[in-house]
């Protein structure tokens, strides 16, 4: 009997916990008297990057669709606002990963930075004229700190996801799935 491959579900579970922790961090950062203002981390690009680089197309697509729908459930935008750009980023990265060493940590960081930036730009474009105008400085600062956090957390997140998958019997480091 063929074993059902539910690694996308495990990856989604890890992404869910990660986004929950990010939400809690953003909650505590809303009241930061020491640095005089609010900060907001947007790190949804990390789970998408992991799915694009370490999972097969089908598994990565399932994990990304679930993660994107989870992330946009609390957003004041129409359904699909984050899902479609995230899916596009996943598919594009999956198509391009034959051209570089996807197991290389620097590749992971580059992909995560690019995907996170694209998702932030997509949300900014959808939010329309309200988010533009005099809010450019805040937008730029949030963008930079989010990208810095992505760069700092990529290694940890990828390792955590790999370890989590390993706990459920999916050893990505040694098994060979669909090429490349």
């Amino acid at each position: 009997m063929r074993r059902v491959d539910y690694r996308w579900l495990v990856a989604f579970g890890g992404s869910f916990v990660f986004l929950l922790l990010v939400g809690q961090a953003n909650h505590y950062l809303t009241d930061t008297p020491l640095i005089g203002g609010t900060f907001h981390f947007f790190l949804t690009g990390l789970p998408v990057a992991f799915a694009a680089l370490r999972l097969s197309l089908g598994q990565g697509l399932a994990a990304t669709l679930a993660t994107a729908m989870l992330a946009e459930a609390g957003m004041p935008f129409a359904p699909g606002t984050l899902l479609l750009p995230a899916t596009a980023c996943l598919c594009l990265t999956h198509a391009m990963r034959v051209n570089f060493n996807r197991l290389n940590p620097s590749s992971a960081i580059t992909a995560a930075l690019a995907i996170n930036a694209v998702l932030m730009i997509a949300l900014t474009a959808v939010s329309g004229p309200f988010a533009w105008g005099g809010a450019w400085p805040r937008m730029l600062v949030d963008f930079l700190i989010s990208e810095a956090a992505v760069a700092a957390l990529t290694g940890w997140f990828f390792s955590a996801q790999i370890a989590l998958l390993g706990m459920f019997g999916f050893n990505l480091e040694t098994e060979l799935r669909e090429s490349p």
Partner: protein
Amino acid sequence: MPRQRFLQARPFLALGLVVVAWLIVPLVVKSLARVSFYEFQAPALLSASYLRDLQEYWALRVQSKDELIAAGRDIAHTNARYELGIRENESLRAEVERLERLLTLPVRAGHRYEIARVARRDFSIWWQQLWIRKGTNHGIPVGAPVVYTGGVVGRVREVHATTAVVDLISSPNIRLAATFAGDNRPVAYLGVANPRFANPRGRVEFVPGDITADAREPAQLVTSGLGGVFPPGLFIGRIQKLTIGPDGQFKEGEVILDDRLSSLSEVAVLVPIDDL
């Protein structure tokens, strides 16, 4: 070779399929999926909030009795002031009802206060919203006004079984009908993207030309009661500067909101009594 081309094109085929499927799928299915994913994460959200309350409780437990007695004394003074205000409010309310009967005026819609703890604050450049720990199970309707001791918090945007999402008045998608304290001419308040290292901000437009404001005597902006959502007279913010708008007829200016909006832990939802 054709197989290799197919493998290279497969991600784009998958993307095309997802886009087409998303366009075809009915809106009710998308909304159901959205609600399902929201409710999926709601228990985790609430658990984190309850854990924070537990943390605060144990932090208070380690405080000395002297500190607690002093805090209790301060609260008693505040309660005494509020009790006097409540009695005055009740007598004014009775007077208003007597005058409404006497002059056969339409009765104003009443509200009941549903106190709710804030489960999570989420302030980004795209939205400013709170999750509160009450929902349809507590009779919270969509669009209900939300207030706190300092005035207006915002409006309920989404309601689920045990949680609700509140748009803050500093959120870019909030519009309110307002007036200046002591004046009954309506003006428009709107939320704007908030700058860094500053209090939450909003914007006021269509201000009559004779109204002035400066840093020494800031003008107070309050709700007008128009539209029937917010009761009249609730504090919104202060205006320190008004400038002539692009049309040359009305003024506009920046509204400085209370910085306590960034640290709210408890709010009150005004539930219309007619909806009970």
